């Protein structure tokens, strides 16, 4: 079953198109990463598919239900909005208690405390939110989104403004939730985070989906020259010259050093042939590393 499907989903504010004919298909059980610069339309898209704002045109289905039946599946959706403000007069515990009642859940006190502990708020269970830091509010935001163990979880920038230790905890938590079969829709500015956590990624720019696929597919799509680092035994100047000549037809750029070389090829299929040239000249190779484009490089290439 599809967790989320959008068909030509569009949102306009006056003449400005914020989300432009977006088609997404997210299978259940995946961690879907949604990338884009500020103002790309990521949060607007999440707000539309969670029922907070109305699309100007197009349609969507969440867990197989159309937009008009969204309220009937609220119990199965968890949402961490991009902007987390809470009720200053309530404690972390009271917030979760209030929210779980809205969702018609019947969690015990211990269960609520356990959810708060999962996000690292075990020391702030009975502290009023007005005393919370930004990071603590973000953690409470995550806690409220998972309290009912949703089937589909929307996390809009879950780690922005959170300290490094907490980021690691949140990453573990996301993996743990995904392992239970929950589909996670994650937006982030942190490209490493998306690369590390997500099965599939879409990059949004100016309201449109610019590219979508798994990391492998994106790499193949946006792969440019491949840099190969080779560690080998020490080479004499004569050996270096011979090696350089033998690689001329294979490589775009060749830098032969005394005990390490950097060779740039245009396709990964050429790497074994590069290796063969080393073997043919009786040069021991200790290591070979291929430098792949990171998500950041792919992202920047789309600019």
């Amino acid at each position, binding site marked *: 079953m599809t967790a989320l499907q959008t068909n030509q989903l569009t949102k306009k504010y006056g003449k400005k198109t914020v989300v432009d004919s977006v088609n997404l298909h997210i299978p259940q059980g995946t961690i879907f990463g949604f990338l884009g610069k500020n103002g790309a339309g990521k949060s607007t898209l999440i*707000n539309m598919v969670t*029922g*907070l704002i109305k699309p100007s045109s197009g349609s969507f289905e969440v867990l197989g239900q159309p937009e008009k039946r969204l309220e009937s599946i609220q119990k199965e*959706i968890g949402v961490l*909005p991009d902007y987390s403000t*809470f009720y200053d*007069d309530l404690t972390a515990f009271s917030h979760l208690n209030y*929210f779980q009642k*809205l969702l018609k859940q019947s969690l015990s006190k211990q269960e609520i405390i356990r959810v708060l502990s999962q996000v690292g708020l075990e020391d702030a269970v009975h502290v009023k939110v007005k005393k919370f830091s930004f990071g603590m509010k973000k953690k409470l935001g995550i806690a409220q989104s998972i309290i009912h163990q949703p089937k589909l979880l929307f996390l809009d920038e879950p780690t922005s403004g959170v300290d490094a230790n907490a980021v690691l905890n949140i990453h573990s938590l996301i993996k743990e939730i995904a392992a239970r079969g929950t589909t996670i829709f994650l937006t982030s500015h942190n490209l490493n985070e998306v690369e590390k956590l997500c099965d599939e990624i879409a990059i949004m720019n100016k309201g449109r989906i610019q590219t979508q696929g798994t990391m492998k597919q994106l790499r193949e799509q946006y792969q440019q020259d491949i840099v190969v680092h080779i560690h080998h035994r020490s080479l004499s100047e004569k050996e270096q010259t011979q090696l350089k000549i033998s690689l001329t037809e294979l490589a775009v750029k060749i830098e032969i050093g005394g005990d390490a070389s950097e060779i740039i090829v245009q396709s990964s299929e050429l790497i074994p042939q590069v290796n063969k040239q080393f073997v043919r000249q009786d040069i021991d190779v200790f290591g070979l590393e291929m430098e792949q484009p990171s998500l950041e490089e792919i992202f920047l290439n789309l600019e």
Partner: protein
Amino acid sequence: MFTVGFREFKSLFTSIRSILIIVVLFGVTAGTAKLVRQFEAPLHELGLGNDAYAMGLMLLLILAASLFVTGLSHNIVNKEIDTRTIRFLATKTSRRNIIIGKFIGSFLFWAICITVALLLIIPFSKSFSMLTLVQSIIFVSYFIGLTLFLSTIIPKPSLSMFLGIIISIALPVLGLWSSGTDNLFVKVIGYVTPYFYYLQEEDSYYYSYFVVLFPILFILLSLVIFRKRDL
């Protein structure tokens, strides 16, 4: 909707405001009652009842209920939109539950405040007027519905406060004026205020029950607008 309603009720009641409201209702009712006794006959002619204390409370509500309710509840919906806490609610419960829940919470708060004020007056009045209680609650519910509606259509709490105060001053003036003028425009406006229905002859007190329709209308309008609203 009861979860939203209870939260709204609790947040209104746990503040110092509820105590102040009860003190004002009690104090002014008791104070007005002394004055009312001196003008009982002319007020009776205006259809304001026999009991001085009941009249005191009704007089206070007629003149100031709109301001009281606006002051407390002008931001009942738009504060949540402004601070974006509405996003937590709207992703967990239906928009209908939010609007009706907000109304129930505010309605309960006022119903209890008025009941407590009337109970506190018993040692002086030696009676408890159920009719006054019901009529007072219906009267106040008009303004609860109106503030709910204003708070739904006006996105900024500061603007709803400003407009709410203007409307809550204008409504009693227009409502009372409409009862004694032949100006068609003012008369028509009078029909959509609760004052027309509350200033009928005493034996026509059942007119006041028509006022119940207004909060229902305000809730329905708020629901229609809130359902279409981007949050």
